[in-house]
């Protein structure tokens, strides 16, 4: 084997690998999009893999008749609330862990991680009882609080590593030149931590967006999207839903995420580009 064929083989292996990875992610997305809009006949026709006739009916029914659109709104509200509450609590904690030395720091860090390992189904019934007493049952705030509990350990650890990456001297310089500690944090550390915080916010958003168990248990009328879809699919409206509804539901769930990434992509890259320098 000469050098040239070796090189060619390497190239082929490389592109095969890239293609496989991309296909792994993209093919299911394409399949979902195709079948979500496939007509009933085409869907059940075994001779057709790719449907020819398309309809918006399934997606429309889900969105409007079966109230998935309301659920999307709910999901967004819950996710945003989760970000706000978990950041309001998590940023000060993350900052403290990053910048200060205090007794039992490691124990506290460990217990934060340990919290994350607690199986949530075990808590479901006590949580419902508690929520009924507190009048939080079937409210978006209630779901957001539960999601906050799940996201908080993650937010604390992520933000602490972000803040550890911002030099303390930059903040001290701001204090020397006339700012209070809080002012220095808001005008120096926070802007510098912003890209990292944005990433943490995105993860929190996705976690809340995808969370189905707690949302299903805690709500009835005010469901988030996954909970609403789960109850539709499980047959809350009489019998299990046909397959094309499932594809339509999957499409509705993934579309906002895809749109978000598509539009945020450019902004995120420039933002990371600046701070990585």
């Amino acid at each position, binding site marked *: 084997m000469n050098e040239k064929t070796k090189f060619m083989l390497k190239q082929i292996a490389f592109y095969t690998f890239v293609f496989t990875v991309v296909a792994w992610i993209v093919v299911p997305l394409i399949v979902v999009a195709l079948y979500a809009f496939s007509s009933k006949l085409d869907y059940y026709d075994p001779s057709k893999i790719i449907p020819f006739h398309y309809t918006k009916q399934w997606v429309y029914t889900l969105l409007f008749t079966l109230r998935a659109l309301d659920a999307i709104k709910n999901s967004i509200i819950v996710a945003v609330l989760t970000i706000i509450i978990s950041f309001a609590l998590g940023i000060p904690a993350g900052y403290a862990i990053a910048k200060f030395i205090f007794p039992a720091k490691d124990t506290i860090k460990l217990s934060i991680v340990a919290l994350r390992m607690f199986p949530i189904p075990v808590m479901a019934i006590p949580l419902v009882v508690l929520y009924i007493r507190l009048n939080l049952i079937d409210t978006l705030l209630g779901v957001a609080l539960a999601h906050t509990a799940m996201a908080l350990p993650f937010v604390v650890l992520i933000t602490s590593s972000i803040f550890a990456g911002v030099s303390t*001297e*930059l903040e*001290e*310089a701001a*204090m*020397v030149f*006339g700012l209070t500690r809080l002012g220095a944090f808001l005008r120096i550390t926070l802007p510098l931590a912003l890209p990292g915080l944005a990433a943490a916010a995105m993860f929190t958003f996705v976690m809340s967006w995808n969370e189905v168990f707690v949302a299903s248990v805690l709500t009835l009328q005010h469901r988030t999207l996954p909970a609403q879809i789960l109850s539709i699919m499980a047959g809350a409206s009489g019998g299990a839903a046909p397959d094309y509804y499932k594809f339509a539901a999957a499409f509705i769930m993934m579309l906002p995420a895809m749109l978000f990434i598509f539009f945020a992509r450019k902004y995120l890259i420039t933002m990371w580009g600046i701070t990585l320098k």
Partner: protein
Amino acid sequence: MVEVRLENLKKYFDKGRVKAVDGINLTIKDGEFLVLLGPSGCGKTTTLRMISGLEVPTAGKIWFEDRDVTYLPPKDRNISMVFQSYAVWPHMKVYDNIAFPLRIKKYPEEEIRKKVKWVAELLQIEELLDRYPAQLSGGQRQRVAVARAIVVEPDVLLMDEPLSNLDAKLRVMMRAEIKKLQAQLKVTTIYVTHDQVEAMTMGDRIAVMRQGKVLQVGPPVEVYSKPNSIFVATFIGAPEMNIMDVTVKETEKGIVLEGEGFEISLPQDLGELLRDYINKTVVFGIRPEHMTVEGISEFLHVKRKAKIKGVVDFVEALGTDTIIHARVGSKIIKVKIPGHVPVELKKEISIIIDLDNIHVFDKSTEKAII
């Protein structure tokens, strides 16, 4: 402008286990350039941080004139600081970095522009104002840090080893520039360094620190020629002062210092100072530049001399100076002679000592006797 006074200032870390600063008394006069000099870990940065308000003292007081600022937050002290890492804010352009302290103090935008222009000209960074710190070299970043520190016209200017990250040539240049700038602004300045050459060339006075304490304060020449302890004597000067144990003896020639392989008889006035130490061991010190080698260069201006014998062990030819390592007894003594002089290795030489520049220290307290 203010006078800064440190009163028995202390800072302990780790519940008193680390005594970073251990009782400093120091007055920095209005408009003075004071250098805090000491080896790594001796508490220079901690002292500076307490003066700036970033660190709260364990004990003691800090006065700006007759204002007790010990527990005042940094923003109420009207100070500026140049950090060792410069700490220019990476998310702001150079202009905004310099303007930031002024904006905090609510100067009108028009005046800010004027002041930034003034300071940018002073430090020759006008063409950098539109760049981000990531687009600057180390030396340029350092200028930005200095510009930011002086634009507010602070009462006290604090600098923590601002030149340590620069290459040798730039460092020498910036030394002169900072010194000139300070003289022009007449701002009370406390400058931290562990580089003794920097301290000697820049300071109006030098405070030599060791293990959280100030050992000696004085003008550079005084600290150099009259060190009060072995530590200060050896810390300042390069190559460092030769140090060896000698015994004080009284003979018919008067008081004599008897070392291993040599003997120096002292003039009467110096000898008298050692009367209490007769038959005791003391530490004798002599700087390399206060000796010469007979036959190579003569100490014509030196009135009182002594001679000891040695053997050339090694020669460092630096071009401007020649440093001869001579073996005397089992010790190596370094002699610094100006210019380039040829010296044969292994040759026996007579070393001439300038007796008006010798130092003698107490062996146990390490304090200077002569």
